């Protein structure tokens, strides 16, 4: 039993880093040294005792903006991933239990969306609809849910062929009940590590779109947008765009380390955990 609780050091590191950034997102407004939206110094000063990470293109404190951007960037990716899972998992399980015809229709529609990269498709949709936070969330969530659907369907098809699902059908349970009470709990473990993986992708999509100027609009602090605003500074050897980009990189690495650990736990043969 004790061996199951052992967490590899890389995963502990990931959890600690993630906790730090979630803390930033939750308590951001109370711990920022300066107001993130007002000019407090000169343009692009380097790191100093006064401004730990320096100032940005119009003299705002970068540390304050990184802290307050945590809420926007992580929050957006989280909401998007939750929405994408709600859509993808329910449709995936539905396709697995509702019979071959529904499955065929849903799967072909998903195939159609899979044929275009998410970022390119998002660019096209955002051109047509204009960029705002609700559009951004809905677009990425819908596009990403097609990828979630594939995983959820594959897992659910396996579960749906088990005897206890047939028993539930014979008992006369309704389709939604079977989906929620028989399939979902058994499909959950692989879906949890998939959640971490999809979160990473969505996080990078949101950051990339903001970096391209199509995500979160200024003056709201957001990491991808901050990299864009300060991109020019790099040619003068100023680190201003590196900090928000580094924040994005660190969060993604942390989530990936946790996902790797969850994956290695899941792929362990089922009997092995009982043996240890």
């Amino acid at each position, binding site marked *: 039993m004790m061996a199951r609780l052992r967490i590899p050091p890389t995963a502990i590191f990931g959890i600690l880093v993630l906790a730090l950034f979630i803390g930033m997102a939750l308590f951001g407004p109370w711990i920022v040294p300066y107001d993130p939206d007002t000019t407090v110094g000169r343009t692009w000063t380097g790191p100093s005792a006064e401004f730990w990470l320096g100032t940005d293109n119009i003299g705002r404190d970068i540390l304050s903006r990184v802290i307050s951007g945590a809420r926007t960037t992580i929050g957006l990716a989280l909401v998007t991933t939750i929405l994408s899972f709600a859509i993808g998992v329910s449709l995936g399980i539905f396709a697995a239990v509702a019979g071959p015809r529904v499955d065929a229709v849903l799967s072909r529609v998903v195939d159609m969306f899979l*044929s*275009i*990269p*998410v*970022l*390119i*498709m998002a*660019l*096209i949709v*955002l*051109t*047509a609809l*204009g960029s705002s936070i609700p559009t951004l969330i809905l677009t990425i969530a819908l596009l990403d849910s097609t990828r979630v659907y594939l995983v959820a369907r594959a897992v659910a098809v396996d579960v749906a062929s088990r005897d206890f699902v047939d028993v539930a059908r014979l008992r006369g349970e309704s389709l939604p009940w079977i989906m929620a009470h028989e399939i979902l709990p058994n499909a959950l473990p692989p879906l949890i590590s998939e959640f971490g993986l999809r979160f*990473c992708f969505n996080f*990078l999509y949101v*950051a*990339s779109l903001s*970096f*391209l*100027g*199509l995500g979160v609009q200024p003056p709201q602090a957001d990491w*991808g947008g901050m*990299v864009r605003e300060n*991109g020019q500074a*790099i*040619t*003068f*050897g100023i*680190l201003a*765009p*590196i900090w928000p*980009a*580094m924040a*994005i*990189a660190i969060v*993604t*690495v942390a989530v*990936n*380390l946790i996902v*790797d650990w969850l994956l290695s736990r899941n792929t362990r043969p089922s009997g092995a955990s009982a043996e240890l």
Partner: protein
Amino acid sequence: MTRWCCATASGSGRCCTYLGQSLTTQTPIVEAIGPRLVSTLRLAGLTALVSVPLAIGLGILSASREGTVLDRSLAIGALAAISFPEFFTAYLLILVFSVKLGWFPNLSTIFPEMGFWEALNAMVLPVVALACLVTAHMMRMTRTSILAVMSQPYIEMAFLKGVPRSAVITRHALPNAAAPIIAVVAMNLAYLVVGIVVIEVVFVYPGLGQYMVDAVAKRDIPVVQACGLIFGIAFIGLNLLSDILAVLVNPRLRRPNRGR
């Protein structure tokens, strides 16, 4: 749809009105896309040329030294390269090689008048930034494919015969792992399509991705559609290629697997 396909296939010239006009410049899109498509293909081609041999080589090396310090450091490097957003890698490269060391220019604006070596010099940083990302993916999957083959009984047999480890990997494991590796290579080249958009914007490289992002900012729908179409074709084409190559290399896939 057919008008579009015709226009893309012929490139420029006869069908030049087919992609329509740009809303902002009122000029045929094909004329603007032609040279940019060539630039983008050049960037993607160079990246593939660098990253494919590198990824397969490192993957084989990593698999043959499984569990050693080398393997672990390669794994950590790959994880970092995959997790970093493209622009972070790109800005780090600019900071080190352009600003601090001054080896390469920080912007990769290529003009037709530039000499071959000058243009190549300007392309080094974007190629490296793109290659980092793609190489990491391919290396990880190459390593996994080889190690999956290594657990087969015939590999154990080869070891029992006394064949050295390096020979087991190159002679016995590699040919059998070729199919998944080839599929992975084609799939990751398709991934280039996404990475190239961001990298072109960072380095102000005059390619298709930058054109598309500019058009999105101006809400120039015909241009965005045209670029989206080309990226879509490249993506689908490479995926198709990966499927075809997988079947060619592995005869077992030629007959559809009916009923598990």
